[in-house]
């Protein structure tokens, strides 16, 4: 199946602009009259709903931050009476309160629509067996994909996350064709598969939709090679709707944003200016169909850029590049912004497979020190100290030329860096500031 909803996915630009404008104007009115937090912010800027007439007026509106959702915990940002809310999800906050999101019946319908489009991008159809290994529960990953898959009419295997041995057994026995999980968990499964003696030929997997964390092209190559599948990057965040905000198609050249529901902008996170098309910056979303929790210019903290030309697949929607990092996962070492994904690219350029790695930041005296721990692979190993020291030096030099700061590289034994079945922990910051 090529498209789920060709009328929306391949809409011409004028028609899209007309629909977006109409929906934006309506959304701004709704939040102004129903959500005190939005009204106060707009009044502080001296803006009224009537000032928003075109898409270009979007930049006049104030930003919304995760902190706004926390300040209005739990339901203060909802734009409908609570009796209209039929589902509540929450994202675990590592700092402070959880971020609570509410869906009306229409929101759930929209969510199923956009995740159905996402799944169709990976070739999911009625005959597919989809194993959903994202967590079910308050996290939006599991249930979000679930409803999209049901809408398509695929056979849903709602296994949720964890218990890798059982995942692999079911994948093999139930004939799973589509796998949905985080990319790091997909790699973890591939490792466990090799240990369990299961070959990719024993499986029926065709494609995987992987998201919820940043991953590199090299990591994609490795997943595709080891599982023998098409690996598709998907993007979503619970505040905006959950999975289903954007998805790659089979051409893997950027993630199609479901623009008839979510308007993207790229801004400079420091100056908050809107950046010209193609610039790298922070992704900002405005939802234009959501009822329960509409968001105006929501700061995602994700770093990416937008692609405006039309994709080979025929979809006309604007695409976002793979997320290359987060403004808040970013660590600042000696004044330099460092994203773990930069280290990953360096390591993957050196060998044929992805070694596991971890960044350890510490402060010695007044100086920040970066140590990069890299697990020894067969590929890097040698019986001669000189060769291993050369590899170490190569990694150190590549990091230095990529980041502009020096780092200590420490090679460690395989599997000595902690693996998680969810998101990989790439940074340990021991600085006490």
């Amino acid at each position: 199946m090529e498209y789920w909803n060709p009328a929306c996915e391949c809409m011409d630009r004028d028609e899209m602009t007309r629909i977006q404008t109409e929906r934006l104007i309506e959304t701004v009115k709704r939040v102004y009259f129903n959500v005190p937090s939005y009204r106060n912010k707009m009044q502080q800027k001296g803006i009224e709903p009537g000032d928003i007439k075109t898409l270009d007026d979007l930049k006049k509106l104030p930003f919304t931050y995760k902190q706004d959702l926390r300040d209005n915990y739990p339901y203060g940002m909802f734009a409908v009476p609570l009796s209209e809310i039929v589902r509540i999800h929450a994202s675990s906050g590592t700092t402070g309160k959880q971020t609570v999101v509410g869906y009306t019946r229409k929101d759930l319908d929209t969510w199923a629509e956009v995740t159905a489009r996402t799944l169709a991008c990976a070739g999911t159809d009625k005959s597919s067996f989809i194993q959903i290994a994202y967590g079910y529960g308050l996290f939006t990953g599991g249930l979000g994909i679930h409803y999209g898959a049901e809408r398509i009419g695929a056979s849903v295997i709602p296994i949720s996350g964890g218990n890798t041995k059982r995942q692999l057994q079911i994948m093999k026995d139930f004939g799973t064709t589509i796998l949905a999980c985080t990319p790091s968990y997909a790699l973890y499964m591939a490792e466990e598969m090799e240990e369990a003696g299961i070959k990719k030929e024993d499986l029926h997997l065709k494609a995987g939709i992987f998201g919820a964390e940043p991953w590199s092209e090299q990591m994609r190559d490795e997943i595709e090679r080891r599982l023998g599948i098409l690996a598709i990057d998907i993007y979503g965040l619970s505040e905006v709707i959950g999975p289903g905000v954007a998805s790659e198609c089979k051409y893997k050249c950027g993630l199609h944003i479901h623009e008839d529901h979510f308007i993207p902008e790229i801004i400079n996170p420091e100056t908050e200016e809107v950046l010209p098309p193609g610039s790298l910056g922070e992704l900002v979303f405005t939802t234009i169909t959501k009822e329960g929790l509409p968001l105006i210019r929501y700061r995602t903290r994700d770093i990416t850029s937008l692609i405006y030309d039309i994709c080979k697949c025929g979809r006309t929607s604007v695409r976002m590049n793979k997320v290359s990092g987060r403004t808040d996962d970013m660590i600042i070492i000696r004044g330099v912004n460092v994203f773990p994904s930069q280290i990953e690219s360096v390591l993957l350029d050196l060998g044929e497979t992805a070694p596991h790695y971890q960044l350890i930041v510490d402060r010695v005296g007044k100086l920040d020190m970066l140590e990069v721990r890299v697990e020894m692979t067969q590929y890097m190993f040698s019986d001669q100290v000189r060769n291993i020291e050369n590899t170490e030096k190569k990694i150190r030099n590549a990091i230095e030329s990529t980041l502009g700061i020096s780092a200590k590289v420490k090679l460690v034994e395989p599997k000595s860096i902690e693996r998680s079945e969810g998101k990989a922990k790439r940074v340990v910051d021991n600085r006490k500031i």
Partner: protein
Amino acid sequence: MVKQISVFLENKSGRLANVTRTLGMNNIDISALSIADTTDFGILRLIVNDPDKAVDVLEQEGFTVAGTDVLAIAVEDKPGGLSEALTVLENNSIGIEYIYAFVGKCSNEALVILRVDEPHKAIEILGKNNIKVLEQEDVYKL
């Protein structure tokens, strides 16, 4: 030539013990070993009686392991015995990467493991100079 296995070790206590325990539990006998170490890591090099099985069991235990072909030679166990063999290599411009001795020995010969840059040439020259180069089978029987 003789197959040597190398194991990557972090400089942490208990790692070497773990390797020897794994080999011991699988009835693998160590006949020579050496460690090259730096501040952060070490490379353990081993000659064992069943190198293929040793690689398997160590990899299962999570170690990074590599196999390398090395030379095993027997020199007379007397002052200057080793020097004779090394002089032959030097005269023929064969570089030695590393060298270590066997745990045991046979009769009045000392056994030495050599990693050189041109192993085939080294075997030929050592042979011509009447220095005994041991075969895999000879070593495993020790």
